[in-house]
């Protein structure tokens, strides 16, 4: 059974949760839970007695997909704008 003291001692040496978990043979989410007393998946923020590094869901879940950019969309938009002679004329020469 890994103790909180053991986890904290490693964290305080600047080792991240993933590495701590690997060294102790436990899951990184469990290492975070032992260190902080709260789950990675707990959305509420808590005032902790000592400042501990926060953690993301990637400690316990597979990689997440959340793209915010699709450059090809703006290529399409530029084509649409370019094909609009009135719009181009009204906007003046492209810089």
């Amino acid at each position, binding site marked *: *059974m890994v103790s909180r003291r053991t986890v904290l001692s490693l964290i305080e040496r600047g080792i991240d949760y993933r590495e701590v978990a690997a060294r102790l043979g436990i899951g990184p989410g469990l290492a975070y839970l032992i260190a902080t007393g709260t789950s*990675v*998946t*707990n*959305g*509420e*923020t808590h005032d902790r007695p000592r400042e501990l590094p*926060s953690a*993301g*869901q990637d400690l*316990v*879940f*597979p*990689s*997440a*997909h*959340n*793209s*915010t*950019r*699709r*450059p*090809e*969309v*703006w290529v*399409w*938009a*530029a*084509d*649409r*704008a*370019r*094909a*609009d*002679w*009135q*719009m*181009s004329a*009204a*906007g*003046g020469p*492209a*810089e």
Partner: protein
Amino acid sequence: MDSSWLARWPVLRQVTGTDRPGKAAAAKSRRSGELRARTATADRVVKSICPYCAVGCAQNVFVKDEEVVQIEGDPDSPISRGRLCPKGSATLQLTTGPSRRHGVLYRPPHGADWQELDLDTAMNMIADRIVATRRATWQEEHQGNRVNRTMGIASLGGATLDNEENYLIKKLFTALGVVQVENQARVCHSSTVVGLGTSFGRGGATTFLQDLQHSDCIVIEGSNFAECHPVGFQWVMAAKARGATVIHVDPRFTRTSALADLHVPIRAGTDIAFLGGIINHVLNEDKYFHDYVLHYTNAATIITEDYADTEDLDGLFSGFDEDSRHYSFDYWQYEGTVVAPASGQRDQEHDERVSRSGNVHRTARGEAHGSGGAAVEGTPERDETLRHPRCVFQILKRHYARYTPEMVERICGITPEVFAEVCRHLTENSGPDRTSEFVYAVGWTQHTVGSQYIRAASILQLLLGNIGRPGGGIQALRGHASIQGSSDIPTLFNLLPGYIPMPYAHSGQTLTEFVEADSAGKGFWSNMDAYLVSLLKAWWGPAATPGNDFCFDYLPKITGSHSAYDTVLEQIAGNCAGYFLLGENPAVGSANAKLQRLGMANLDWLVVRDFSLIESATWWQDGPEIQTGELRTEDIGTEVFFLPAAAHTEKSGSFTNTNRMLQWHHQAVQPAGDARSDLWFMYHLGRLVRERLAGSDDPHDRPIIDLTWDYPTEGRLDEPVAEAVLAEINGWDHTGTPLSAYTELKADGSTSCGCWIYCGVYADGVNQAARRKPAREQDWVAAEWAWSWPANRRILYNRASARPDGTPWSERKKLVWWDAEQGKWTGYDVPDFEPDKSPDYRPSDDARGVAALSGVDPFIMQADGKGWLFAPAGVLDGPLPTHYEPQDSPFPNPLYGQQRNPSRLLFPHEHNRYQPSGSEPGADVYPFVVTTYRLTEHFTAGGMSRWSPYLSELQPEAFCEVSPELAAERGLVNGDWATIVTARNAIEVRVLVTDRVAPLRVAERVVHQIGLPYHWGPNGISTGDAANELSSIVLDPNAHIQEVKAFSADIRAGRRPRGPDLPALVERYRRRAGITEHTGTQR
């Protein structure tokens, strides 16, 4: 490892191993030790948003082997913080459950059963029918005015569709000339847009859920917040933990009441009397926030001497026309100015003209104030002392003078003691250092005076100085994932995107005339020409030029009301032949369900897109009228197409939550079988129609041929790229560079923007709606989570959080303030004000546009910059909220001779009879008050919940709630059946006898109320009669929303009759009550 039973004994492992406390390894068997969570073994996590209510809880969708295996709450969300309610938790079953259909079904005319059909054939058949019906029903003119439209096709959508889907629906149908385009927002929150929009300038909630935690007093009224928006309710609890007082005003004691400090039972349909009573108290006791009221509202504005109040005219305002039952705004004007609604004075005249012809109703133009107030020409006269007898403040005092605690008790059934307690909490928690918030839902909106309910709360919050400030505001709890979005990008007959009004038919109307009539000369709405031209460029691209008014003439014209309820009557009359139901189930969810079905039975063709075979798809086969013999399947000529829809996990797009926040959900997996997104359906339907019209030289087809419809597609299904549609909505400049704000829009055709209020959602080429910076890494505003319109502001009108001089009202309630050193507004939220406009700025007399607003005008979408206590225009049934009884009420109106809202919209029909009210003979046949409501475990008309085994097990059967006293009076037994009867129909439900619906003493007698959840219909796993069999079509004149939150009925023990005996029972009741076609239709 030793496999003997002794070694597997946990106690031995505990006492002999290292885990002596038994917290870990000792308590775990080998089998449980080998188990892995689906969340851990998934291949990937896809970020999503819950598709049920409009709280907008974030979800993690876990995918393994290209299948969704688990859905959980996303803890990074600042709104939901990882939580999901029972419905949200059941979304795995919604999306992967066995009840979902994946094949197309076809019912030929007069057919007895479904046939299978392949998707391509179905799409081509539907496209053929659109083209043919459009041709056959094309109207070039209506009463001498050019309209360029078809009344032969209509569409009704759900409000859990993505913004991008709604955008294509509106764009394609408008180009086809279809004006009867509607969605769930009509029947849900349309009155919110009118009430909030006319009061403040925008029709959305003024605040956001997380800000509830800063409130000192929360009044929840017209909402069962804890059960209907459970995850959002955590912020009420956060406020309570900080010491806030929570008040719940509701006919029923619910879980919301249980968690409140004070529950106030009220007779359904009387909230204006209650709120008016509080307004009277605030004014009489000088509890209003003087400086806020004086500077930020129109309290000091002088009203024309033509104005006469309901106190003078026994329940009518001046300007009422008995024949048309319409008011003229001329009698409510600001002294020395002309105030016109967004529809323009010209439209009002037009309305009057067409209404005299008797075949159209006045339209819901108040919704055009969703993001822009009425035009004010001239400078209103003011009395800064607030003593002028015709100033708004004094008029308000007189109007509510008789709304005394005793009157509140007589009307609402609330004792003066309890009423005084509410007043005390509210007033003690309002002022410079404290704020109170009102929260409501459809308990307020769905009345014949629904818009005025919202207006009453708006007036009260303005008087108390609670708008635009942290912990204050009015929270409109919307009940569908994107019902705000379906108003913003409106699949609504009377609006274009961004609350630009649909043009009316007027001879010789041009773009310039339209803009001059419909935009305001002052405030941000004065830039409407730039918003409209940019929209026309988005839709018709290079075809839209200054020489042809940017294709303004391509827009079909409306000539009155073409709302969802008008459409039903058009169907029955044989004028509407084709109908699209896109995620909507009116056979259960709309008022007078029978009339909905009778309308559909008179169609040529019907397209239903949904997850399962909802009642609106199967009424011809097994609907209630088939059971009673009123319809015969073989007689019904309607051709029905059922097309399976994709779930939110199977498509990308954005939902706009209840607080104007656009949140993006990503596609996790491809939909199976023939299931498709509505984005796919609309895009490919448009493609097929355009193919058919490609060679046409008919000028009527130009709007379709010239339509920009070149969206990129992806994947094996050719799914349109949703981000491309969002990009078009956001807009770009002449180089195709994304725009960052609506202030960049131009009226010269150099910018394109599909919805001006959403401009900025794709700023810098970043899908801002998809931003997911974890809440714990941000402050409480969490500005980097998704994106809210307008301009990513979270609290609207936040200039009012500072004093006129720009300093905060108090340190405790500071939000936005003027930084004199930097010469700009700053704070925790994006200032809802021109960033560098000094508090000292005063416009010149001839100033126009935004420059006409002074440095102390926080309501920047209003032409006078003020919050409107008195609405001189825009609200069709009066400048001030007034108590009227519901259409069907057991009580007379004790305040006025005027019983009901004189401007309400009636739909007399043999299947839509109204009941006697008050002291009229026969009223006692329907002696009880019914109020309908929603449950945690079901969703609106049931299409997304009654097919779910999880949710159906939790709420398996239709029921009603009655008090022990009513049960004793009518012989009702808990768990047995009861039959509820109105003049429309009768239904049977299980009886739940409970103290939660206590009898009230009203007008010196006891009234019993019946609580009735409305989710059920005969299909699905959890079944029952629909509550809307009982309701009538009678509407708020502003928003055309139906009255289903309060109507009178009878209740009796036992099951309802079967077959023809059912309509016979209803008819016997009608005869007893003496009901005729005239009953309840008097002014």
